[in-house]
């Protein structure tokens, strides 16, 4: 049992790394624009379909397919921003949310119309290696390493460049940021491009682990949303920590009970956080 738990724990950490990447884009977009990108998981789904079409149907090497998928996802991010979010910037927040639900429905049904409802996988077989009694799947390790490297680059970008500094300023106070000569509209667009790139990288990371289907996205939108809330809406470090908590709990819970209970425990955590620490793990409570 202990060995099983250790294995689940290791898997949880690896899974958490991928979740961290997935949630980071949604978290950043929420921080900058105060909008929950409800079609985020669907963007990841588009990335997965792109990878599937390129590798399985057209026989393009996986790595190249992944790069193309990242490019497609960033363009998708720009389109979603320009067509649905920007025209509604001055409208009430609910309108943007509804528009993004619309995007979600459109993307899911497009996928259904083009690819049908089947589960499609790229069928890769990766070896497994062991450290003592803990077995590590290479198919989980590669995405984990990619996620951590991506997040490290993102951290450098946010902390070492003028644009990164501007993004962090807009997160805190949009009006004052504009008084620092920051073009906030441009920052919004850049944020969606980053979100798009991240959803593309997330798709590349998930491709070896999951098979894609038209409703693939909603589970990931929901998981990313849970992480954003648990971490403290818009708090990037909080979201990073929350990803590992969620990853470990769902995997370890899956071993102790069943996989379904493991998934359920994630929402128990969400409810506990909302009840007892509504500002999230690292969030700051805002006075009404």
């Amino acid at each position: 049992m202990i060995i099983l738990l250790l294995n689940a724990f290791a898997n949880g950490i690896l899974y958490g790394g991928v979740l961290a990447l997935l949630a980071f884009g949604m978290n950043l977009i929420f921080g900058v624009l105060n909008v929950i990108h409800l079609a985020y998981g669907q963007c990841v789904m588009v990335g997965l379909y792109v990878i599937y079409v390129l590798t399985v149907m057209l026989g393009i090497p996986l790595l190249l397919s992944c790069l193309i998928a990242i490019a497609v996802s960033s363009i998708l991010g720009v389109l979603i921003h320009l067509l649905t979010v920007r025209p509604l910037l001055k409208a009430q927040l609910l309108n943007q949310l509804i528009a993004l639900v619309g995007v979600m429905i459109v993307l899911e049904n497009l996928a259904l119309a083009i690819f049908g409802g089947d589960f499609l996988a790229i069928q890769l077989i990766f070896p497994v290696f062991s450290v003592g009694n803990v077995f590590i799947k290479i198919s989980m390790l590669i995405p984990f390493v990619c996620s951590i490297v991506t997040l490290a680059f993102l951290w450098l970008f946010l902390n070492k460049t003028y644009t990164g500094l501007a993004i962090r300023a807009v997160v805190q106070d949009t009006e004052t940021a504009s008084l620092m000569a920051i073009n906030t509209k441009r920052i919004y667009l850049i944020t969606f491009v980053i979100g798009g790139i991240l959803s593309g990288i997330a798709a590349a990371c998930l491709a070896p682990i999951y098979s894609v289907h038209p409703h693939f996205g909603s589970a990931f939108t929901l998981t990313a949303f849970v992480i954003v809330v648990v971490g403290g809406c818009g708090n990037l470090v909080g979201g990073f920590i929350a990803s590992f908590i969620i990853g470990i709990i769902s995997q370890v819970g899956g071993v102790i009970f069943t996989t379904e209970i493991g998934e359920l425990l994630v929402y128990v955590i969400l409810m506990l956080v909302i009840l007892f620490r509504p500002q999230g793990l690292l969030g700051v409570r805002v006075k009404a």
Partner: protein
Amino acid sequence: MLKVEGISASYGKFNVLFEISIEVGQKSTVITIGPNGAGKSTLLKVISGLLKPTSGNITLHGERIDDKEPYQIIELGISVVPEGGRIFSELSVYENLKIGTYVKRARKILNRRILEIFSLFPILQERQKQMAGSLSGGERQMLAIARALMSQPTIIMLDEPSCGLSPLVVKNVFKLVDRIKAEGYSILLVEQNVSRALELADYAYLLESGRVQFSGKREDFVQNPYVKKSYLGM
């Protein structure tokens, strides 16, 4: 240099400013005083582009700016110290100063400029790695002013820099503004602390209910019976 001509502005249907005209010349300190709700802060919002005027025009160095976005107006050489300072409390003191040089012309001078600012405000150098949110009220206002100076603007607008501070700190804030004045910046200062603001002013405007009631050089302004009675308690 900065010319505001016949500006009217409103929040929705609620009119706040009525045909305001003011002018800030080279190296001069202009103050705008008046009671709460007179429209002083709104005037600064209109000049900085946060609120679009319903009529009138604003020019800086002869170029119209009233149809521009805030980021474009700041690029042209205006710096703003917003009400309450509005520093970025989750950025470090250093990062707050760095973002003051976000304007394109100032990025090259960041390293030199930050040393100049540190020599003006040694306490900010000591605290440069701290989160700005951990500063005291007076230090925050100091940081907000320093941030506005980073880009070497031609004109700096301050919105009630003494608001909400203790009397001793207020004294220091006005000393700071006096120092900026001595450095040769043009200043547009909005204040409720009339007597202190007048000590610094070259020219003053009295704003009441969104209209300029009276304006004049400091000497004439302080002699005006209405100003004396209502604002200086004499």
